[in-house]
């Protein structure tokens, strides 16, 4: 039988794990955090099984006639990757296990961490436009491409945030954002001389590239969490396909629609 105190600890641990998973942590980090929090509160028999879509925790008090308890937490929809939150929870779990922080205070701390405001929108747009513009230069763009990518990157990132607000799924989101950025880039190159649509489209594509999914899937494979590694690798592949499809469809449409109008077209 677990007592109310142990139940509180369990809820705290699972909450911490859920937060980490949603903000893009690896599986072993999530499992390790939950186990450490439980063990710090003298629950000695803990078994955790975490996946990107759910966390399972089993507890036992270790007495002969005690029942085992299992808690299942379903995690729906990955949130934004927020590395500040991961860093804070990491520090929190270290603090919780080494000092005698009470469970209530711990829960309060977790709520605070969950409510850390994201970077303000203008700054995030600036980040997206930095990524787009500098990558367009790295992939052979000039000054004009830099400026175009700056604006188009911000616009497509804004669109992706908008679609996320209406909880459109990630495949459609990637498709739409890349389609819009491709159209904008092709329009810009049609009207502004000495610009290169390839560099601009690659630059904006880089904003949405599934780097987090790739890195995490490798780390999961490395630590032996095959199922999660496979799940995240599939996610990365699907995102990559959605991006390429979005840009590709629009470029094909553009070349078929306007190739006769703009004398041979800007592409192909």
């Amino acid at each position, binding site marked *: 039988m677990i007592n109310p105190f142990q139940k509180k600890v369990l809820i705290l641990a699972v909450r911490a794990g859920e937060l980490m998973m949603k903000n*893009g*942590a*690896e599986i072993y*980090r999530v499992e390790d955090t939950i186990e450490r929090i439980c063990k710090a509160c003298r629950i000695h028999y803990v078994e955790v099984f975490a996946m990107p879509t759910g966390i399972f925790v089993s507890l036992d008090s270790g007495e002969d006639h005690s029942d085992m308890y299992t808690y299942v937490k379903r995690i729906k929809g990955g949130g*934004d*990757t*927020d*590395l*500040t*939150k*991961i*860093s804070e929870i*990491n*520090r929190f779990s270290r603090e919780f296990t080494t000092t005698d922080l009470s469970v209530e205070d711990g829960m309060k701390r977790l709520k605070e961490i969950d409510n850390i405001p*994201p*970077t303000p929108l203008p*700054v*995030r747009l*600036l*980040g*997206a*436009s*930095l*990524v*787009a513009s*500098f*990558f367009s*230069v*790295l*992939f052979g763009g000039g000054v004009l491409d830099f400026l175009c990518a700056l604006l188009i990157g911000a616009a497509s*990132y804004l669109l992706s945030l908008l679609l996320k607000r209406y909880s459109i799924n990630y495949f459609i989101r990637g498709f739409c954002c890349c389609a819009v950025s491709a159209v904008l880039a092709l329009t810009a190159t049609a009207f502004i001389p000495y610009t290169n649509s*390839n560099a601009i*489209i*690659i630059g904006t*594509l*880089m*904003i949405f*590239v*599934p*780097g*987090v999914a*790739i*890195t*995490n*899937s*490798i*780390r999961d*494979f*490395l630590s032996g969490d095959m199922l999660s590694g496979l799940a995240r690798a599939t996610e990365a592949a699907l995102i*990559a396909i959605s*991006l*390429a*499809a979005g*840009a*590709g469809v629009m*470029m*094909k449409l553009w*070349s078929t629609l306007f190739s006769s109008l703009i004398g041979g077209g800007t*592409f*192909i």
Partner: protein
Amino acid sequence: MISAFFFALFATLGFCIIFHVPTRHIPVAACIGGCGWVVYQLFMSQGTSAIVACFIASCAVGLLSDIASRVFKDASTIFTIPGILCLVPGSGMYNTMAALVSGDLKEAASTGSNTLMMAGSIALGLLAVGAVLRIILSIVHRASYIAGKL
């Protein structure tokens, strides 16, 4: 090469902002991204294939992020994620798709497989660094344990 470093540095800075890297770690994370790109370009300019260059660059990023995570006592993910993003073959993806759109299936197959292998080599680089570090650390741990016993 120096200008490439700064371009990559600013691009990584953008990723740091999007992924909300803690403000105190942003300079280091951006520098790791810049270093990764410079290593990649360095090997590319020596005529190494893109796949090998990607592997070595991702090894460099993995190693630097691990060092940074130990120095600043924070999760290494915080440095790896923005650092590795510069190397992800976005241009390969684009070129594959452009070849597909223009109906050049041969070109699409060759760039496509090249892109996949680049992504794989990034993965392999991180994996290799992780594995080697784990071995070295366990040896160091063991040695200090034995030394403590003596």
